[in-house]
């Protein structure tokens, strides 16, 4: 399932013009962390949204195929049409996938370097225990 969700992250933020895409930012590792650390509601919202992205090409590009079987150009057309869809649910599902993809992609040091931004340090994940 992780591979499927990683595919969705890559679909909304693909590599372009020397800029790495979400699939170049270890999306599987990111999703494993997300699964372990995020609350159920957040996780379920993302999983459901990713599934909507996978099964909705019939609505957007009129093909009865899951998104991962679409050729690259049609996949691009599919996600773009989701963003412009008249169906609010489709747009919201895409927004959720984009939000998660953005967290994975935008924190990646290669991406930040490519855009001329300072790479982030590592999140400490610590708190006061005494």
């Amino acid at each position, binding site marked *: 399932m992780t591979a499927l969700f990683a595919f969705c992250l890559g*679909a*909304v*933020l*693909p*590599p*372009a*013009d020397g*800029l790495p*895409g979400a699939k170049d930012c270890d999306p599987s590792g*990111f999703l494993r962390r997300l699964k372990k*650390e*995020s*609350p159920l*509601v*957040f996780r379920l*919202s993302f999983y459901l949204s990713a599934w909507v992205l996978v099964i909705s090409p019939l609505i957007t590009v009129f093909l009865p195929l899951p998104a991962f079987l679409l050729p690259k150009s049609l*996949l*691009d*057309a599919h*996600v*773009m049409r*989701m*963003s*412009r869809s008249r169906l*609010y649910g489709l*747009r*919201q599902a*895409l*927004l959720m996938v*984009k*939000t998660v*993809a*953005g*967290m*994975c*992609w*935008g*924190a990646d040091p290669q*991406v*930040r370097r490519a*855009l*001329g*931004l*300072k790479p*982030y*340090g*590592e*999140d*400490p*994940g*610590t*708190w*006061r*225990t*005494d």
Partner: protein
Amino acid sequence: MTHYAYQTGRETLELEVDYVVVGSGAGGGSAAVTLARGGASVAVVEAGAWRDPEDYPYTLYGAFRDLFDEWGSSVTMGRALSPVLQARTMGGTTVINSAIVVRTPGDIFQLWKDQVGLDDPDMPETIWTYQDQIERELSVCPVPTESMGRSNVLALQAAENLGIEGHVIERSVKGCLGQAQCLQGCRAGRKQSTNVTWIPEVRRRGGTVLSCAPVRRLMHTQGRVQGVEGHFVHPQTRKKGSRFQVRARRAVIVAASVTHSPMILWRSGLKTPALGKGFRAHPGTATLGSFDDPVDMTVGATQGMASTHFRNDPGLKLETLNMPLELIAGRLAGAGKTLMDRVQNYRNLALWVAAVRAQSVGTIRPGIGGKPQVFYTMNKADMLRLRQGSIQLAHLFFAVGAKAIMPGVHGLPYALGPDQIHLLENASLDPRAWTSILTHLFGGCTMGAEAGKSVCDFDGKVHGTEGLYVADASIIPSVLGVNPQHTIMALSRRIATRLMERNL
């Protein structure tokens, strides 16, 4: 004196103090330090972990995980889904906001007098006196020139060019370094959030602090509230730890946020007809402007410029907001290759926000798993204000040479040029066409003179109970049209002071 973080084991942690304060943000922090300074023994009970600046995350992922309530995934139910952002950490929302300090406008007290029967003619003077003190304590000052960053400077210039009021924001930040990291906490330790100011002071004065300790319910018998109880929860694994029970000899002060305070009363069986009602907010929408040269939203104060020019008519506040790359990728319209082409322009983008002084009213009710659920839909008048806000932002952007603006409204082209503002004037008023977010939440335990129409009185005392007070934004019965942190802190200080005057 003592800090209890996550505890395990079968034994219940039992404590007894004069006052229990639930929550450690603007309301809870202010109440707790006021009581501690008055010599009372205080216990602060906070649901989130206690993180110091060196514990703060760098990334948005880390911020969602470590600082935000439910990872920022709470949304309103209604015509559109709007995120409701609150913190869950020691210091509450003061850790993740921009620390903006605005005094309570005088017209608000008149509004409370007219609408909910405020009968204390001294309240404005008292609140402003407390706000004087708070400003001194928290080193409030305007954003220093060297920390402004280009987006804030452009916005000031734009306001000047258009002849509208615009000012440098005053914040409780001491020596801002302009790292644009307010949303992730301030790792430089410059933001004077309550976890680095008032809560440590409470401890120094002998108070007790419990972190990772979400209150499940209030203990009460025969209308008298005696304390709080719950279980510690591990901040990473969310595993339930030991039980805690903190008894209050004098009173319990609930300041757990607009969404959580009503739910604590609800779960405790202290339902009143007005509980969860009167929810209000400042819904905001952002517009991006694209410039020829880099703006660099990663440089400069997260928020450095604001305009209250339209506060009364039509009811708007305009301000800047530097947004991290991770969020921009989600905020820009489109997906796939088109989105990547757009996001490559990140360094040349500025993001400015219009927040609506909304009149729409919602409710808060228990949702899935007893978690708070907000029901809220913006009415047509508020949607008109939101649209006008977006138009004003467009004018501001073009007044300083933006090439194009991206209002992010469904049904409009991705980018609009200066000659296309008329398209925005005809944009849909359906909330689902807009990307909006609810900031500055109010109500749910509103104060008022009539018990049937409000949850507590003007001293924060919950009607029909003894020993129970509310002291956070949930008591505020209207929107303010300005950032609320300063009002919350001052109201809470007033509640705690009056409580001490009566009880000690």
